[in-house]
């Protein structure tokens, strides 16, 4: 697998390899071919449908490529400021405790700009579900280093690869939140293979069930492909995720209040 040449345009047009439908998606997303974020959106919305939550859900969407999902998701949404989704979700949930409230944030949004928000929301035990789409870069602004960029990863602000000496270490936010007493459920999944997509969907379901059971803050970190920000081809994205990210971010359930009670 090689890093793609970004000096010349792609040789052929993007091709759609599969069609997925959920009635909550109103139209085509405008994200890059091979992006992992639309896959995460689909399993999130399917989960709301399966849990029969569609007409009692409010989403809070941060700033990143996923921000454009506001245009295609048929859910009540507050588009909030960069990094502030857990605070906004707190206000929403406290005023409408009967709704299911989720945030949709990227690594730049949650772990850079809004790091304290998610930790404090977890510490308060807010009954909201935070969905973190972690691709290890600021995708939207063109592929710069975020707090979760793995060591060795080349970005536009770590051109020779992230070096701990120069750029510091990545932050494993899910591990931090899992250690906070007010957290109800914390897990990490990925969308780079069909198997991981199915597993991650179960994690999302567990997270919403935890929210509905009033266990405290639930967080599902989802590793998503960003071929554009990683400078790899779209078909190479899933393998690149596997080889670069999953060692730094092991998949699985990190904390489950209900499992620990049993």
């Amino acid at each position, binding site marked *: 697998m090689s890093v793609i040449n970004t000096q010349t345009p792609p040789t052929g047009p993007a091709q759609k390899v599969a069609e997925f439908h959920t009635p909550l998606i109103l139209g085509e997303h405008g994200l890059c071919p091979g992006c992992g974020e639309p896959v995460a959106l689909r399993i999130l919305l399917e989960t709301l449908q399966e849990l029969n939550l569609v007409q009692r859900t409010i989403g809070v969407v941060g700033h990143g490529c996923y921000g454009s999902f506001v245009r295609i998701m048929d859910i009540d949404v507050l588009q909030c400021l960069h990094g502030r989704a857990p*605070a*906004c979700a707190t*206000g929403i949930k406290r005023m409408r405790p009967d709704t299911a409230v989720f945030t949709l944030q990227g690594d730049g949004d949650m772990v850079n700009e809004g790091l304290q928000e998610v930790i404090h929301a977890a510490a308060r035990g807010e009954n909201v579900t935070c969905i973190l789409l972690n691709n290890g870069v600021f995708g939207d602004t063109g592929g710069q280093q975020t707090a979760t960029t793995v060591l060795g990863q080349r970005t536009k602000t770590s051109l020779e690869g992230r070096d701990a000496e120069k750029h510091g270490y990545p932050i494993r936010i899910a591990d931090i939140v899992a250690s906070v007493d007010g957290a109800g459920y914390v897990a990490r999944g990925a969308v780079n293979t069909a198997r991981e997509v199915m597993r991650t969907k179960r994690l999302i379901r567990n997270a919403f069930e935890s929210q509905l059971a009033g266990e405290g803050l639930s967080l599902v970190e989802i590793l998503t492909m960003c071929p554009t920000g990683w400078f790899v081809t779209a078909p190479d994205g899933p393998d690149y995720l596997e080889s670069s990210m999953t060692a730094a971010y092991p998949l699985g359930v990190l904390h489950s209040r209900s499992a620990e009670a049993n």
Partner: protein
Amino acid sequence: MSATAPVAEMAPLELLEGSTAIARAAILSNCRFFAGYPMSPFTGLLENMAKLMPAAGGVCINAESEIEGVNMVIGAASTGARAATGSCGQGIALMQEAVAEAALNETPLVIFNMARNQQDYFQCTRGGGWGDYRTLTLAPKDVPEAVEHTQLLFHLADKYRAPVILYGDPLIAQTRVGVRLAAPDLEPLAPKDWALDGTMGGTGKSRQVWTWAMGKVTDPGLGPDGHWRAVADKFEMIAAAEQRWESAYADEAETLVIAFGSAAKFTEYVVDELRAEGHSVGWFRPITLWPFPGAALAQATRSSRRVLVYELNAGQMLDDVRQFVHDRDTVRFIGGVSIHESGLSYGPLLDAPVLRDRILAAMAQPTER
């Protein structure tokens, strides 16, 4: 014109500290969410809210920062609840990104700037966020008026779907005075059919609160260009409709003193004293700092030979006075920066004898006309 919320004449007179009175006025106005971060002299309001909100069925959160407090309030307000935050100076400065956001995504909220002095005039009236927005700001002169203004602000925030500010100070936050508190009696407002309640998912008509107002692919919104023009038009409309002021003896006085908030209360007292001694002096008080009552000021200063601006800062409202006064050459600044040694309140310039001396000294100077 000084239209404010109807005073609750029938309610019992109670001796209350300003922070308690304002908290109770907010709850009587159906405020049900409050989040803030301690900073003197705002802290008392936060403490009162923490004490009183639970019994009212509301929520008060000691937020981890002003940034999070104001964003929690945006969330609460986006569901249609009446919600407020507060702080002063630096704390309000931290909130500016969110104040602009609330203006542009049209979430109504009330911000209590329980300021340490009058140095936040620019912050309230110019704002430190981004975009074409304004914040309607009421500056009460004392605690009873702060109670009226609190109730009016929750109403105006909802009416215009915009963030609005109460400009208080240490005297208003911490003075105990007799006040009457009752539920406000204000014109009915349209139902909040824009508010997020979660019920519209899957109907194709799910709701959005979104600064960019792009709508859905199936039902496009105005987008940033159209939406931000509409918001700018709305603020222009508010600017014309909501100017509030009060003045006395403007037509018959050679010298007119302009002041806002607590400084205006001192001004009223000193002007009365000077008039009793035969001096030709009057006063003018902007009640809304934004929109600034410019036309009224122009009218009030038509026959003034001296226009004295008394504010406890280096001359911030002075800019607005100069913009609207009948004759700029008549304007003299008699205020200044004056801070208590603690840094938390006014210094010696906010005092009747000092103000009196400054007015008399200015009146001894020759006039331009």
